[in-house]
Each structure stands twice: as C-alpha cells, then as structure tokens.
C-alpha cells in the first residue's frame, strides 16, 4: 500500500478500549514504521509507534489527557501532533490522521516528511 490518504480500516469503534492502543504493523500499511492507533477519552489518534528517543513501542505506553507516555523512559508525546512534551525525547514522532466512519476506525497515513497535525 502506498502512503497516500486512501485509508486503512484498523478496527471497529469499541475495538480499542479507552486508554488503549492498537499497533498496526508496517507490513499492513507499507509505512516505514508500525503505527499506534490510540483511544483517549472517545477520540482516536495515530502516531508512528517507535519512540523518537529509544527503541520502544508507544502502543504499550500510558495514554491520558491527549498524551502518550513511552513505556521505556517516560518521554511523553502529544497524541495530536506527535510533538515531545518532556525529556528525554527531543524529536517528534510522525502523526497520522484517524477518521471514524460508520462505526469503523480508519487510518490515513500521513506524508513521509515529518510530523503532521
């Protein structure tokens, strides 16, 4: 699959519990990294899964108040923008668009050139 905005159906609404994330493998999307799709308080977000600081999966992080905290060293990222909110991360992770359509969660892979809002 190309990295254009065709969209990939990743789950049904209800398939990702609040405070949880679904890791969509790179093989499924054709993207350079796995993508974590987060559910935070009724809203869905998607970021590149690998922390920009260390080798850790953000899908296993703590999700709260619009942020995800990396399970490895506790760097926090904005779920919306992928921007780091505290050390030790200093670089963003790429953000992708998520759409809820007819009870299903769709992932739209963003361009491969930096974080998108």
């Amino acid at each position, binding site marked *: 699959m190309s990295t254009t905005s065709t969209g990939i159906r990743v789950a049904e609404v209800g398939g990702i519990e609040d*405070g949880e994330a679904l890791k969509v493998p790179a093989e499924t999307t054709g993207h350079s990294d796995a993508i974590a799709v987060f559910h935070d308080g009724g809203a869905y977000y998607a970021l590149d899964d690998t922390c920009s600081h260390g080798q850790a999966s953000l899908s*296993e992080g*703590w999700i*709260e108040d619009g942020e995800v*905290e990396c*399970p490895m060293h*506790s760097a926090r990222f904005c779920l919306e923008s992928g921007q780091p909110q505290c*050390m*030790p991360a*200093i670089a963003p992770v790429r953000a992708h668009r998520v759409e809820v359509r007819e009870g299903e969660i769709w992932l739209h892979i963003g361009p491969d050139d930096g974080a998108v809002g």
Partner: protein
Amino acid sequence: MRLCRRIAVVGAGLAAVSLCDALRARGYDGELVLYSAEYGLPYDRPPLSKDVLLGKARREDVLLRPEQWYAERHVALRDGSVVRAVRPREGGLELADGTVVVADRVVLATGGTPRALPVPGGDDPAVHVLRTWEDSVRLRERLLPGTRVAVVGAGLIGAEAAAVAVARGCRVTLVDPVAVPLAGVVGDAVAGALHGRHTAEGIAVITTGVSRLEHRPGGSGVVLHLTGQGGPVAADLVVAGIGIRPATGLAEAAGLHVDNGVVVGTEQRTSHPNVFAVGDVARRDGHRVRHEHWEAAQRSGEAAAHGILGEPLPEPGASWFWSDRHGSRLEAVGTMADAERTVVRGTPDSGAFTVFGLRDGRLVAAAAIDRSRDIKAARRIVDRGVPVDAARLADESADLRALLKR
C-alpha cells in the same frame, strides 16, 4: 541577578546534556560549553551494563543526542578536555593544558568513579568495573563462554552484569554480604523474587563478604577469599559493582561544601551561588543519599537550568528507576521504606507482579517486575495524592486507571 551569558559545564553525561536541553528549551541563547574528559559524543550509561555488554548495541546506538543536536542547539562539546580547577571567585575554569575559561555560571556534572574493592588484592588487573563505555567494551571482550566470572556486589550494576555474563555462557558467581539486595527500596517480595532469579539462571549466589583477592601464580585470574562460608572462589575475572565515589575533587579544591557529594539546594545550587552541581556527584541538602538514577540525573539537569535562569522549578513528583536482568524489568516508584503496609497485585509465582506501599491511606511507593503499566499508574496515584483502597489495588479485575478518574 547578573546577566548570565556564559555557562561552562564540567562533564557530559545525562545530567549535563539534560541541562543543555532545558536551558535552550527555556530560551537561554548565551554560550554553552561542555567539557568532557572522555572522547567522542556523550552516551547514555544504562545500556553499558545491558545491551552494550551483551554485544547488541554499538556506540552510535547509545548516544545521548545525535551529532547534529550539538550544532543545532549551539552546544559546544570540548571532548578530551580535562578541567584542572574551578575558580568561582574569578568566575571560570582552568583546563589541564593551562587554558583559562571565563564563565558566569559553572555546572559540575562530574559523576563518580567506581569504588575499588577495599580488600588486599582489590587492585588486581583481573578486577573490572563498569562505569564508562571503555569499561563496558573491555569487559565485554572478556565475557567468553566458559569464563569464570565473580561479581562482587549484587545491587543494580552487579546484578545486571551477572545476568549478562551468564547469558553469554560464563560461569558466574555472585557475592554480596546482603541476603536480599534492594529489599529496602523495593520491598522483600520483589527483591527476593529478583534475587532468586540469579540462582534459577545458573548463577552461584554466595551471601558473604570478600576478605582478599589472591593473584593466581603464573596465570591470569584470582582466587577470592571470603569472610564467611562458600569460598574460596576461583575466577578468571572479577566485576566489582559496589557503588561509586562522587567525583568531588574539583568542588573540594574550590572550597565548596562537600559531604558525600557536592551539597546542593533545590535548584542544584552549591554553596557558591554561581556554581551548580547535577547528576551523581550532587547530594541534595537534607537527603541522606545521592540519588544515582537515570531519571534523577535528568531531573537535576532540568532543575539546574531553572535555577540558572531564575525560573520557578517544576514539581518533581515521585522518583522512578528501572533495572533489567534475566529478560525481566524491575521498576520502582518512591521507596518501600516509606510504606507502613504493602499489598500485592498479580501472582508472584508467575514472576510478574507488583507490590504497592501505602501509608495513611495513600500510595507512597510501588515496585514491579514486568508490569510497567502498574508502575505508570502508581506514579500518577502517588503524585496526585489520590486516596486508595488496598483491596482495590490488589484486585486484578479492578482497573488502576479508574482510581485516577474522579
């Protein structure tokens, strides 16, 4: 406050780099120079006793920041630069080559040096320590299958080194006079389970002290004579993991208040207002111990940046550390010594469980093996002072997140 335009940092570990990040993030645009006695780009230390020792991480994998970070943030790295003196009154530093450096603020991030084994023969060439990149690489080259390795000290570094050595096929003996290391910090249950893993993985654990090291005549290696039962132990190499001495020499010579570390206030300010100390070398006034953990170092750098810029400090929150050994991860929040009762979540027999420490109906500490999410929840519960019910903490069917939503 006098305008600060030149900051000189002695040392280039995590605390120093975190300081630079925080200074730039807060808008400081003056001179910022790191003087590192070591060569090369600054690196992160936790992997030195884990993936570097296992041969799974190269130098470029463990850099604290990529090379372009220094250029982008105008942080000048003077590697291979030894600082000979700090001169607070004159305002600056003197380098080993005689160069005088003028600075408005000096930050000491000199870390520490591993303690040598304080016994006869403790300086034998067979004894390794683990603090720097070179220490780790030197030891890694010797950890060959069948090598007899004696690790002295079963705290964080010793336990991790022993786990790596046995994973690499070495025959490992772990010697510590403490029956269950770390129990004071993480509690008996977690400490006991962790320590028990050593034996399960084939490490010979001996609970006693070392009285002397005898050089094996005509060969390499030593015989460890012990103070109690279980010896002597023949070893091709020894790893001493018995803590560090804070590198306070520069601070002492500069007349700063030094007592088991450079004594600092909440902003990491030393007894001289223009000199700060961060990381392992610093001891917070009123704290009995130096907090020699990764996150504590990072936070101390951030706190010093706030202090230098005269900005209010962020709330520190509960302390946190981790340790990896035998494929498991220990994490702890706060210290179990602060708890008056404990409650277990999960099944200790499974190897993965959490112990919560409570006092006066509040959570004060938590320690877990392979239960990172419990720790993340615990940290928030501690920091927010949420009243907790012990039965709910113990109930696996009760979501810890729910405790935070009220």
